[in-house]
């Protein structure tokens, strides 16, 4: 398998095999748009399920129990606070989590003691937590400030690094795309949104940009002197860059996803609801979407923006015109793009590359 993959990577690099990613941008844009709209709908219809940190309330976790009867927990809570409707969920192999609305101190002490009693565990096996209703609002406000500040910084840094704002804009659009879809998936799964989830969302910001930077770096390298030659258009060079980084993108994504997947697995199946599960789902989806967008969305977008630049547009037109006039009309455009950046001495460049004899009529 690895051999095949390596060969595939070689072919992609040399251009022997090439996927027209930039050329089919309509398709990718449509897919992305559909996903974004779907996420938007999911955000409205089932909506996000706010965790206790955002609702406010009391939470008890009874650990080290043998009998995981949810009814017992509900009855115990109601014996102290009769009009409570506690939400009970499993947590790990031997723990139960019970969430209620806000209980006052005395009540929550009582409930904790009663739970310990009912489940026959030591009182210190019961974890209690009380969260005021404004706490979550505080966290989300901080998160939004964080996002805004981060985006500003990233725009500046990327504009400086790539010396072109179009890279930054394309990366930012890809970023919003990633974020929205991740939040949408979270809404669809229906897990509670806790501050840990918010952490996950915020980390996606960094990861999505990271992924895009790796691809853009190659794009920039390949297209650095695109205007000084007339064999390839900007789009073709950019497409070669995406193809060349494809293997790298896949490898980095897989390697980044493996640990996250491990946490997600352990979090979801062993621990149950909690910090690890919340962070890792957000990250897992975000990284997956981030990889997709860095390849299929960011670069085509960047090319699309670039082609609006008069200089690039003129160059593209010139290249295509030259190609047509050299009698290769209808010839596979990508056959031109499908060469490695550095030409190998001795390899044939096609008859078009040969010096032409001037025909003089006598």
């Amino acid at each position, binding site marked *: *398998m690895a051999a095949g993959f390596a060969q595939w990577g*070689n072919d992609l690099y040399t251009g*022997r*095999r090439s*996927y*027209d990613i930039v*050329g089919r941008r309509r398709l990718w844009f449509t897919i992305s748009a559909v996903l974004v709209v779907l996420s938007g709908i999911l955000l409205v219809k089932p909506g996000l399920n706010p965790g206790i*940190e955002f609702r406010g309330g009391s939470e008890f976790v009874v*650990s080290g129990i043998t009998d995981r009867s949810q009814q017992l927990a509900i009855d115990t809570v109601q014996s102290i606070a009769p009009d409570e409707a506690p939400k009970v969920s499993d947590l*790990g192999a031997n*723990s139960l989590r019970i969430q209620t609305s806000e209980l006052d101190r005395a009540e929550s002490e009582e409930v904790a003691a009663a739970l310990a009693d009912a489940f026959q565990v030591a009182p*210190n*096996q019961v*974890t*209690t*937590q*009380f*969260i005021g209703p404004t*706490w979550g609002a*505080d966290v989300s406000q*901080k998160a939004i400030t*964080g996002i805004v*500040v*981060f985006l500003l*910084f990233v725009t500046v840094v990327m504009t400086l690094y790539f010396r072109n704002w179009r890279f930054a804009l394309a990366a930012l659009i890809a970023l919003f795309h990633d974020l929205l879809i991740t939040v949408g998936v979270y809404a669809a799964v229906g897990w509670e949104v806790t501050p840990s989830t*918010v*952490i996950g969302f*915020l*980390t996606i910001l*960094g990861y999505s940009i*990271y992924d895009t930077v*790796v691809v853009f*770096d190659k794009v920039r390298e390949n297209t650095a002197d695109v205007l000084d030659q007339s064999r390839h258009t900007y789009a073709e060079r950019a497409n070669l860059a995406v193809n060349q980084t494809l*293997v*790298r993108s896949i490898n980095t994504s897989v*390697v*980044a996803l*493996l*640990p*996250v997947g*491990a*946490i997600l*697995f*352990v979090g979801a199946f062993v*621990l149950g609801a*909690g*910090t*690890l599960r919340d*962070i*890792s789902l957000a*990250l897992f989806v975000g990284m997956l979407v981030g990889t997709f967008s860095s390849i299929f969305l960011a670069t085509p977008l960047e090319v699309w923006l670039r082609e609006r630049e008069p200089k690039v547009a003129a160059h593209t037109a010139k290249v295509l015109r030259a190609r047509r006039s050299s009698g290769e009309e209808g010839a*596979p*455009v*990508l*056959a031109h793009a499908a060469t*490695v950046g550095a030409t*190998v001495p*001795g*390899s*044939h460049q096609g008859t078009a590359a040969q010096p032409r004899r001037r025909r003089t009529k006598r």
Partner: protein
Amino acid sequence: MLLGIVLTVFGSVFVGTKVSNASWTPGLALDLEGGTQLILTPVSSAGTPTSEDINQAISVIRQRVDASGVSEAEISRQGQRNIVVSLPGTPSQETLDLVRKSSQMDFRPVLAVDVGSPAPEPTATPTDSPTDTPTEEATPEPSASASATADGSVAGTVPGATTPTPEPSPSASSGAQSPSDAAYYLTPEVQQQFEDLDCSAEGALAGGEPGAADKAFVTCDTDGVYKYALGPIEIPGTQIDSATSGLQVLPNGGVGTEWVVNIKFTNAGTTTFAKTTERLLAQQPPQNQFAMVLDGLVISAPQVNTVIPNGQAEISGDFTQATAATLAQQLNFGSLPLTFQVESEQRVSATLGSEQLQAGLVAGLIGLVLVVIYSFLQYRALAILTVGSLVVAGVLTYGVIALLSWTQGYRLSLPGVAGLIIAIGITADSFIVYFERIRDELRDGRTLPAAVERGWDRARRTILASDAVNLLAAVVLYALSVGGVRGFAFTLGLTTVIDVIVVFLFTHPMMEIIARTRFWGGGHPLSGLDPRRLGAPERTRYVGRGKVVTGPRSTAGPEDAVEDEPVTDRKVPTPVGTGGMTIAERRAAERAAARRADAPTDAPQTTEGND
């Protein structure tokens, strides 16, 4: 260099374990170790607490917690207005109540003063101490008048220390003549309480209990040096308008050299304070002092030297700039009656914490193993370098966290652990970026050492750019975040920095070294750097002993040329020299390509043709 960093980190932790309380295992946060965490927001009915008020509130809470005998409590500020109190283990109910109690400041008249605790050696009489206790002078503005001595020297000058002479007067039952009426307020019980009070006892300095407003109140000062019997509240802290510290303004309008604290009272406070000073002026020491009681503890007890009718008092004494500023801050803080609103209270049982930690570590291990397996599949023997680099990064991270846990009191939380695990992937990413770059160069036909050099040149830029983005994200997250986000952002940022260090100081130098070995440099099929597998163009080359070999493979060579076993006769697999295909070869290659195009292929084909 890298060895130096590692040795420095571990050396300092080692020294820490010897001379201090550093430990080889990093400290764990509450959610992993178990304990109680309170998140409090100071709320005031009279205006928004300023940043300074919150710092004051933190020191008030710290005073309470430290004095109540809870060890290793952590009180920190989070974000703009939250105070996080972390108490390890299961603190008692009283401690928890104490922490959440609202804090207030009052002015009370002093009825009696004594040394805070029974002096162990009789020589340590307060008379020896005036040098280090401030002698405060309350000089009203603008007309200077009189001197006041604060707690320290007062007690020293008073003969016999226990001045209050409880003259049981018959009028006691008929009501107090004034708040300074010692005879009325110093009942035998209060007297007894006062004598029993030992300010060095545990919990005595916890404060938090403001005392009944209309009764006598017995308490210590914040250092526990003196104890006071105080009259009822005369001026509540809310009647302070503001307090500032600065250099004394002399009567002639010049600026003196002494640091003073200026208090401005509100209208109501001005009237009361005028009356109080008028009455106290006539009293005998120590009853001519009034005590500023913050959170149930006396912060200062200046003596009154004149009547202050205009509500602007000046406290002078042996202040330094810092002590004057502190007192002014405390007074300002006192002017806002703060209550602490509990935003979140979390009690984690130790078993749940360790369960979470264990699960987190298992997850990390699974992730690590998967990453290693994948690296071996992709990079063959080169994965050894990945694993080595990961190990170095892991060791370094562990050392730094242990070091920070000792010097900065850093505690590893569950989100922090998650950050570390995710960092495995992100760290391995930069190795992949590097390796892929080298492979790209190999595909272009460079020899390994040349490929490493060029690949590094380009990969370095990419790695730095993407790590910069990661670091930026971590810093922004850290600076603006609350709660668990912080721990996560911290480990993420830390590992990003360590990633850069490791790539620059370990992975790249090692790569250069192994590029010279026969196994890697020679492009062994299992080395992960085999140029043939990477599709590097084979060229006519000299293989020694007068033999020239033309490789049958080329950029458009026969398919399935990627076999693991090297074709015999290729003793020097690294392509050297230049040269292209012959015409015949090219035609053969074209035929082969045509054949291949006709045959159904397994992999997705190129999208040629119209785009």
